[in-house]
Every structure is written in structure tokens, then in C-alpha cells.
């Protein structure tokens, strides 16, 4: 485990020094400016807007960063030939993939924390506070990003960054639309197309669990301020994310263990 941790820390350190964190600054400015601008347009709704914009911004930024770094994560090691130095060390190949994944997850976790603080600060400046539901939604956002990271790492373990990026974005979009795909599949009478859509919705992760705004869950329409998202729901969603991530990583490790490093 010490070996995995060494790779994790190294990945984290490289991401930090690679100035990934500048994106946080951008996020902060965007949230502050946007909430001020839109807040001025909507009397008495400033706080709700800040929460909506802030959470949507967090989710979008984190997913973009996860895909952007994730698809390059393994590929860069091959391109730069660093893999030739590390893999002949007494480590298993799966430890390498796991370490890289955990390093990126750690980076994204720190980013989530910082973004959460930025959002909290803006809310406090508007005289509101960060309520329990908002914290729970932030946790959900993080778990969604973990799943996306795993998918990006999976593709990057055998494909180029461009293709991996396309695939990951595709799966992300499909994942966010799982309930819609299922609804369409139920309505379609053409059996082949219907079962194809069913299949797709079964394979891609149901990311709608993690971005509940505007979704219908348990027959209820959810707004961000909806308090029904309890810790039990968050726990289930986190469990689902963990299992899905573990499976995808297993595939990534298996593929990575089999390949040749020419």
C-alpha cells in the first residue's frame, strides 16, 4: 500500500504544480460575479440563484477537470516514457493504475473542498448559510466526479486522450440522461431499439443520482433547496458510485496489465 500511496502523492503533487488549481480561481471569480449579476436581476431570490449557479458550476468544473486530467493521466506517462522507469520497479501494474487514480481523486477532493468554501463564503456574504442539504449535494457532486474520473482513467489506459475524452464525455452525457433514456425505451414499440436503449442505460452509470436539481426522484420533483435528500440517500448514492468505480478500475487495471509498453 505504501507503493500505491507514493504514486498517489506524486500524481497529486504533479497536478498541483501543473497549475491545475488556477481553475479554482476562475471558478471563484465566476461564481461571485455571476451570483452578483443574476442576484441583482431577481429580487429576493439571490441566495437560491447563488446555490443553483454555485452547485452547477462546481459540478461542471470538477467534471471538466476530471476528464481533462483523467484522459491524460496514463497516456502522459506513456508519451513521456516515465512508465519505462516506474514499471520495472518492484510494483504491480495495477498498483500503478490505482495510485494514479487515487492521486487524481485526491486532487479533485481538495478542489471540491476549496470550491465548497468559496461558495460558502459567497453565501455568507449574502447573509445566508450553508445548510445541510447543500452540503449533501456537494458530497453527491464529488461522488459523481469520482465515477467520471474512473471512466476517464479506464479509457486512458488503452486509448489516446482525444478518443478517451470523447468517450468519457459521451458516457457522462448518457449517464446524466439515464432516466430519460429509460423513459424513451419504455415508450418505443420497436423491440430492438428499445432493448438497445435499455442496454445502454444499464451499462452507463446513472449519474442522475448525483445531480438532483430538476430531477424526479421517488416520484418527487427536486429543487436544490429540497430537503428530502437525506444522508441515507447520499450513502446509497456513494455506495453505488464506489461499486461502479471499483468495477471500472478493475477493467482498467486488467487492460493495463496486459498491454505492451513499446
Amino acid at each position, binding site marked *: 500500500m505504501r507503493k500505491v500511496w507514493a504514486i498517489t502523492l506524486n500524481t497529486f503533487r504533479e497536478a498541483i504544480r501543473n497549475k491545475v488549481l488556477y481553475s479554482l480561481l476562475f471558478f471563484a471569480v465566476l461564481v461571485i460575479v455571476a451570483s452578483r449579476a443574476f442576484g441583482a436581476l431577481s429580487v429576493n431570490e439571490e441566495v437560491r440563484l447563488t446555490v443553483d449557479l454555485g452547485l452547477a458550476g462546481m459540478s461542471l468544473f470538477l467534471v471538466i477537470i476530471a476528464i481533462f486530467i483523467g484522459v491524460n493521466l496514463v497516456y502522459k506517462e506513456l508519451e513521456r516514457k*516515465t512508465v519505462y522507469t*516506474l514499471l*520495472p*520497479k*518492484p510494483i504491480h501494474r495495477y498498483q500503478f493504475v490505482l495510485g494514479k487514480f487515487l492521486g487524481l481523486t485526491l486532487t479533485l477532493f481538495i478542489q471540491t473542498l476549496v470550491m465548497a468554501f468559496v461558495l460558502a463564503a459567497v453565501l455568507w456574504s449574502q447573509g445566508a448559510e450553508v445548510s445541510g442539504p447543500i452540503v449533501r449535494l456537494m458530497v453527491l457532486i464529488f461522488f459523481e466526479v469520482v465515477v467520471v474520473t474512473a471512466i476517464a482513467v479506464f479509457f486512458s489506459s488503452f486509448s489516446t486522450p482525444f478518443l478517451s475524452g470523447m468517450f468519457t464525455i459521451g458516457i457522462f452525457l448518457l449517464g446524466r440522461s439515464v432516466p430519460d433514456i429509460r423513459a424513451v425505451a419504455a415508450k418505443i414499440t420497436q423491440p430492438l431499439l428499445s432493448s438497445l436503449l435499455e442496454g445502454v442505460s444499464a451499462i452507463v452509470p446513472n449519474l442522475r443520482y448525483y445531480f438532483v436539481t430538476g430531477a424526479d426522484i421517488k416520484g418527487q420533483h427536486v429543487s436544490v433547496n429540497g430537503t428530502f435528500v437525506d444522508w441515507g440517500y447520499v450513502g446509497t448514492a456513494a455506495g453505488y458510485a464506489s461499486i461502479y468505480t471499483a468495477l471500472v478500475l478493475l477493467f482498467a487495471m486488467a487492460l493495463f496489465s496486459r498491454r505492451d509498453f513499446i
Partner: protein
Amino acid sequence: MPAKVHTEKQSMSQSTSTPVLRTHNLAKTFALGFFRKKVHAVRDVSLEVKKGEIFGLLGPNGAGKTTTLKVLMGLIKPTAGSAEVFGRPAGHIVAKAQLGYLPESPYFYDYLTSLEFLVLVGELCGLRRRESRLRAEKLLERVELSHAANLALRRYSKGMLQRVGLAQALINNPQLVVLDEPLTGLDPLGRKQLRELIAELRNEGKTVVLSSHILSDVEALADRVAILVKGRMVASGKLSELLDTRVINTEITISSPPEALVKALAAHDITPRLVGDVAHFTLEQESATDEVVDLIRTHGARLMALIPRKESLEDVVVRQAAVVDAQSESPNAQTPNAKTGGA
């Protein structure tokens, strides 16, 4: 092949332990590109490296040296044949724990300092952080990079990266050190230092395998070599066995040759090249040397240099490459076995 059997018996009696490295009929075929075009990087390589020796892997670019080494490092899986390190299949974690590998033109993490990188590599070898740091500092001293220990690796020159690469290969105090083209990209001083370091490693009882296409580098260092040409091992053994000890030709330099001498030489089919009042010529037949020297002396010219040229490793490779070329043109191509000593 009785000669081969003989040498194998000899090596058995010299050391009963398993060889440090062994490949048997190793082959690797890549399927590259969209059309999965087949590329035979390694066709048939069987070699054995014994404990404590410096082994040179030689051959022109594209001969399969790096692929062979990568198979042994567990980076590439062989298509056919076997590769063993310390008696275990290549890439086995126990084997990897005892070896250090310097890849060809190594490149490391841009944003790490060399000290951080070496500490990381040490930890991957199972060292604790504190110990890893101590070793890293010592090794940076050994490769003369202490002054740049806290400089990010992206600011390093190629020669400096090569030294970092050497340091990372040694961090676990390995019994086997594998260096892929270690002298490429080094300046003359760096090359000298590296040669000294390799000699030190040998004195410490370590086994060193190095590949190169620059034959003189290996010639000066290696106890035994294997020569690869187009993915086949065309020769292997001690250098003294591989090199033809006969004199190929003799280069002679004389100063201010009188007209009469030039004429006399012309009678022997020799036309000297004149540069100022210095004349150079090459004598193809060794037996004629005495006669020609007598001519020079009787004509009162001064003999400046007489250099008998023996076959160099370069000549062996060129000779073997020609053999492989000729054989690959014939349909029933077989592994040329011109001089396969005890591998």
C-alpha cells in the same frame, strides 16, 4: 554444435547458480497501426548473462536491443520463447526488486525535483521515506548532481537527465543493472565518468548489461557481448573470440618520399596519397610489410607511422549484417550462426 556444448559445460562448472538473465528463442512481433502491420522486432534471441559480468548488447539501430531489454524488464510480453531474470519470469516482482533499469533517453516528471523523484522511486522499491531520502542524496552525490538536487527536472539538460536515470536505477542497490544506450547524449567527460561508474559496479560484484550501437564504448567495457542484427542474434561470446585477430591491413605514413620511392611503390601497385610532403597509403597484404619498409629505408624516406589494423567490433557487425541481408533474401532464411560461442 560441439563448441557450444563445450562452453556451456564450462560455464556450468564456473557457477552452479542460475544465470542472472536468460532468454530462450525469444521473439516479439508487434502489430502496429490501423492495419495491424506485423513488425518482427525480435526474431530469435537466446542469451545468458552470468553473475558479475559486464554484458554488452550490440547492434545497429532497429536491431531489437531495446525490445529485448524491455521484455526482460517486463514492459513487453514475448510473442514466443521465454525470458527469465534471476530464474523467474521477466516482470516478476521478486526479480524486479533486484534490478535497476535505465531506459533509453530517459524522461521523468517535469514538475518534480531530482531529489523528490529519487525518493519516489526509492519508495516504489519498498524503502521507507527516510531511508529513500538518504540513498537519494548519496546517489545524487555519486552522479555529481548534488548542486541540482532541488531543481525541477524540466530544467535539466539531457546529460543531467541521463545521470538522474542512472541514480534511479541504483536506488535499490540492485544486483543487476540494465542500461539501455547509457552513453548516448553524454559529453566526453560524462562518458568517462559513466565508464568509471560501470567499472565500480563490477568491482562491487554487480552484473551489468548495457546496450549500444556505439561499439567502441562496449568494446572497452564488456566481458562478453551479443550482436543483434534485424532481430536475430548473429554472434555472441567473448570479444577476443568474436574478433578476427588477423591484421586486415596496415596503414603507413612517410614523410618527404623521393620520386624514386614513389615509382618503386607504384611497382607494388601502391599509390600514396600526398598531403603536403607527407604520404599515406594502405597495405592490404601483411606479408608485404617488411619489403615495403625496406624500400622506404633504402630510399632515405622517414617512416612516420605504421599501424596494423585488426578487425574491430564494427567490422564484425558490418560483416554479420551483410550475412543477414543475404539470408533474408533467400526464401529458406535461417539464423546465421557464423560465430556463436557459448551464450
